[in-house]
Every structure is written in C-alpha cells, then in structure tokens.
C-alpha cells in the first residue's frame, strides 16, 4: 500500500516538475490571436460593437469578454469567419448592435457646412478634410461609412450616400436559372 502511494506521489512530482519547466520555457507573451481577429474585422472603426474601434473589439473577443456577433458591418460572413478561427459556434448577428447596411460613404453638403471641424475630430480614419471656418469635404476613397460624423454635425449637413455599382466594382452574379418544366 505504502509503495503504491509513494509511486503515485513520485509520478505526480516528476510530471509536475516537467510541466513547471514547460510553463517557463513556453511562456506566451500577449495575445497573438488579437491580430488574427483584427484582420477579419472590417475596420470601419464605427464602434457599433460597443468598443472604441476594431482593435479593442478584437482584444475583447480574444479575452472572451465579447461575443463574436456584435459587428454589423462585417455581417454574417464575418461571424462565420470568426467562428471558424475561434472554433466557436456560429451565432446570428445581435440586432442590439445594429443591422448590416449597404456600403455607403459620408457626403458633406458644402452649401450648409459652417466649418466647425467637429466632424473631422470624430472621423476615426481622418477621411474628412477641412479647417476651422473653412468648408469641409469627405475623401470618399478613405471613408469607411461608419456614420460617426453624423451625430456631431451641428447643422446636419452630412448624409450617407450608398455606394452604387460601377464598372470597376461590378461582379458576375451567382448563376440563377428560371425553373422550366423539362419536356
């Protein structure tokens, strides 16, 4: 009986020592996963997920503090990708955080703009050009469509314009055929 206890205790000690060594040798600094999650997120920096930007949201997901279904611009597709990456179950988009919208860009009505620079401060990607008391304008190619500039504008001169299809962005549709009765 005593031998059995000694044997098991010895075994446990030996394995404990090996694991202790491994814990030091293979220490993981930081969370390399954050970058991977951040790469999937759409980078609109819109904050609809409840975090101040895509990177903080990625961090929260990696640490398990946020669900993967809080990003409306990414849509269901991104949730699938995140679920794949994290080995988690797919969840439908949480409507509390908003609904996906067609991609749009902000447009400033230049007649109305009073040059208050509030929107330039709100823009997370510095896509609004303008100085105090000067007319502002949005650099369309860099606008992510986050809508963060809408709220601060005191004269409501910003509106969102959906990005239509152009020759450059057009893509072939999924082949769909009308059902016909075979003769």
């Amino acid at each position: 009986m005593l031998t059995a206890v000694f044997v098991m205790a010895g075994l446990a000690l030996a394995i404990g020592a090996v694991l202790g060594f491994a814990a030091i040798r293979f220490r993981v600094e930081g969370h390399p996963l954050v970058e991977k999650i951040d790469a999937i997120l759409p980078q609109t920096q819109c904050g609809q997920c409840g975090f101040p930007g895509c990177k903080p949201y990625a961090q929260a997901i990696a640490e398990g503090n946020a669900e993967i279904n809080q990003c409306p611009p990414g849509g269901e597709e991104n949730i699938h990708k995140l679920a794949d990456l994290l080995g988690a179950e797919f969840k439908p988009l949480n409507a509390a955080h908003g609904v996906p919208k067609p991609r749009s860009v902000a447009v400033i009505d230049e007649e109305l703009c009073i040059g208050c620079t509030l929107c330039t401060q709100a823009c997370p990607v510095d896509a609004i050009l303008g100085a105090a008391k000067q007319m502002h304008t949005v650099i369309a190619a860099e606008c992510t469509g986050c809508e963060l500039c809408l709220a601060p504008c005191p004269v409501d001169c910003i509106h969102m314009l959906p990005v239509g299809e152009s020759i450059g962005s057009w893509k072939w549709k999924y082949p769909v055929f009308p059902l016909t009765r075979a003769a």
Partner: protein
Amino acid sequence: MRKLHRFHGGVHPPDRKAESTRLPIARAPLPRRLVVPLHQHLGHGAKPLVQAGDRVLKGQMIGRAEGYVSAAIHAPTSGTVRALEMHPVPHPSGLSDLCVMLEPDGEERWVERGPLDYANLDPQALRLKLRDAGVVGLGGAAFPSYVKLSPGARQRLSTLVINGAECEPYITCDDMLMRERADEIVQGVRLIRLMLHAEEVLIGIEDNKPEAIAALRNAVKRGTLRMDVVPVPTVYPGGGERQLIKVLTGAEVPSGKRPVDIGMACFNVHTAYTVHRAVAFGEPVVSRVVTVAGNVLAPRNYEVPLGMRVADLAALASPLADTSGYLMGGPMMGFELPSADIPVVKASNCIIAKSQALFPAPPPAMPCIRCGRCAQACPAQLQPMDLFWFARARNFGKAQEYSLFDCIECGCCSFVCPSHIPLVQYYRFAKGEIWAKERERKAADLARSRHEFRQLRIERDKQERLEKLARKTAAARSHAAPAPAMQEAAANPADDPRKAAIEAAIERARTQKATITPRNVDNLTPEKQAEIARIEERRKKIREMARDRIEP
C-alpha cells in the same frame, strides 16, 4: 517544316467563318453620332481632354493616358463634341461609363500627322508615342501594348509570337486583315521585333485560313526580315496566348506568370497593323476591323470608326427580321449586349446578330455527373468539375486552391458538358467574389493604418500638450521663487538635462545629415547636375521653413 506541339484539350465548334469572308473589308460610313468611351482598355481609363462644344479633328487626342497601365483615346473623326456623359458601354454588366458624344461633320479632317522617325527615337520615347497613339491589344483583351513592349528585367526575348490564329467561330476580322493588308502587318511586326529585340518571329495562323497564310508568306518574302509563318491546327482555343505559345514552341507559361517571364511575347496581327499605322503615318487607333455576322443578310467585315453604335453597324449588314439581340465577341467568349445602343470599342472584334434558330436557349442545367469531359477539354489543364463544385458552394478558398485563376474562361468545359451546366458563369462569379474580397481587404487595411496613425497622432498631441503645460507651470513656479540662479538654469537649455539631451540629438542629426553624401552622382550630365542642385535648393528651403515652425 516546324515541329508543332499540342496543347491539352480544346474543342472543335463549327467555325462558320466562310460567310463573312466572301466580301472584302468595307469602310463603314460615318454615322450621325459617335459614342466614344474613355475607358476602352484594361487598366485606368483615360482622362478627358475635351468639353462639350469643342471642335475636334480626326485623330485628335480626346483622352490622355492616366497611370501606367492605360492608353490614350482619340477622336475617330472630325466634328463637334456634343457632351461628355455617362452612356452604356460594352461590358457584361450593361453599366454606363464616361463617354465623349461626338457629332461628325463629315469632313474627316485629320490632325497634323506624319511618320515617326523611329530609327532615331530611343525605345522608351517610341513606346510612349505608342501609348499616346492609343495602341492596345486588339485580340480582345485590349491590354495597353506599350506595357507589353517594355522589356522589364529581361532585355532580350527569344521568341516573338504573332497571333493570327483567330480560333473563335464567326470571327474573321484578323483573317481578312491578313489577306488584304499583309504588308502593313509585316511592317508592324518588324517594329515590334525591333522594340523587343526578339531573336525569332513566329506568326501562327490556323490552317483554316489558307488565303491569309499565303498572303502573309508573300509579304514576308517581299520584306527584309526573316519570319516564320506557321500554319497551326484548327482547335479552339488555339488563339489563346498560352495555347499558341505552347503549340508553336512547346514552352508552357507557368501558372501565375506571363509569357515575358519565359522570354516570349505575343501580339495580335491587328495590333501589329495599328503599330505600323502609328509609326509610319502617325495615325492613332481610331478605327478597327469588325466582323458583322450571324443572323444578317450580308455578313461582312467593316472598318469601323470606334464609337459607332452597334445598331448603326449592324444595319449595314441588314439584320434579319427575327434578330433577337447582339453578341459582342465570339459565341464562346463574347457576351450579350443589353441593347444595340452600345458603341464599338477597341476590344470589339465581332458583332453577331442572335436569333432563336442560330442560338437556341440552352437546355436546363442538370446535375454534374462527374464524367470528366470538361477536364479532358480544358486547355488550362484544370479540373472544371471541382472548380464548379466549390464555386457553386461559394467555397472560394478551395476554388483558388484548384487554380481558379488559371482559367481563361474559354468556354470549352461548358461546350462539352453533357449536363449543359454553364460552368464559366460559375467561375466568373467566383473570380468576381474573390476580387471583391481583395478590394475589401485593401480598403480595410487602409482604414486600419489610417486609424492607427490617428491614434498615434492623438496620443502624441496629448503628450505634447502635457509637456507644454508642465513647462509652463515650471516656469511660473521658478518665476514665483525669487532665485535668480534657478531662473538662469531654466533659461539655459544646457542645464536642463532633458532639454539638453534633445538639443544634442537634434545637433547630432544635423551633423549626420550634413556628412551624408548621396550615392550615384559620378558622371552625371550637366542637366542632371542642375536638376539635383535645384532639388537640393528646394529641400533646404523646406527644411528652413520647418525649423522656423518648430523653433519659433
């Protein structure tokens, strides 16, 4: 006799070329209105140079090449610009693009033009001339030719392949051009060879065009340069760049590479013709030969001013009453035009009138039975059934693993499919989705870097403000304390250790900058030296201005 090779797969659709080769090429009369799109080639569209109301001459540049992969656009005839507006262009989407609406005055007055002194022009200048002449690949892809003529890393090419295969059914524009204008084509080939320093020139023509082969052989004999006119077996898609290179030389262009990477280049005969016109006469590309065939009374080839609408062009060949639409390009790779109010562009080689009898609606698609006929027919040696499987399930990653992007969309697989599955549509769909993802990813990367930079900037500003505040309070405190020694210490930067360190760093950077001497400045021409001096002057000024702002 040259030893020819075979490419994998291929099909033999009925060629239907005889109808449109009975009559010589005719000049299409000027229509009342021309619609000239500013984006007729791959790459960036041209930048408009005219406004509504401008009078232009034939051959006058109306769109300047913008960016590296681009080409200029010219007025196809003299007349008045009526408007610069969005108009449907030849594109499978049927979407509109910026076009110059031109009303011809019927005088066909040319701009001043003359032959280029190509022997005394340096190659780069000659290439730019071709870009400004709007020379693009007229085989169908409309890739700006001057890009292909830039030798890049490789200085000498082993083989220049001239493509006269013209493998798609119905299309005969290259055939007729070779029969009637063989000498000009040979001249053009000579120029291309000169620019590329190619050692050997092979002209591949499918053996169903004996007249064209004979005409080109005679023209080569009359010329001074040795070129091989090689009849190649008629197999669709023998006119594909990779396929023709394989047949003529046995070499295979590796996946994801271009012919130039294996020391070859491939140009269409029509492109060679326009190169000749541009160099020998200074004429830009303002017209091209277009086959009008299909459900028309008089199929024929026309030399068409670019921008002529399909309706006007088709009317010349008198379409039959039951014509139900038009195809641009051949029946294998072309696309159906949403309306006839669409202009002919540089890439349009053929207009086919459709009818129920000629192009019956395909029978409904049945499930794939994995018979493998598509794999046997695929000239790119892909597995079309697997690509279809994954494209249909939207599993694009897997589709890419199966080399989706090596697909040339030739349509052989759909042609042989016993289940009548429109395979190519699935591949186009998958490619489009992948490109869209790529665009999205690029946009996201841009947004991420801009956001990160903004965060950095905000952080930096905050830090600077804090420092300023700290300095101010320190100054105020020292002011309050009547200790002149301390005040002196604050005023003298050498005594404040942090400030001293910064000061020292700036000084270090300054001396370092002064001691750095730029490389590669030996043996420069005086002009270059002067330019460098000017730039240095400007730089110094900017630096001065910057220093003033930092140290007020």
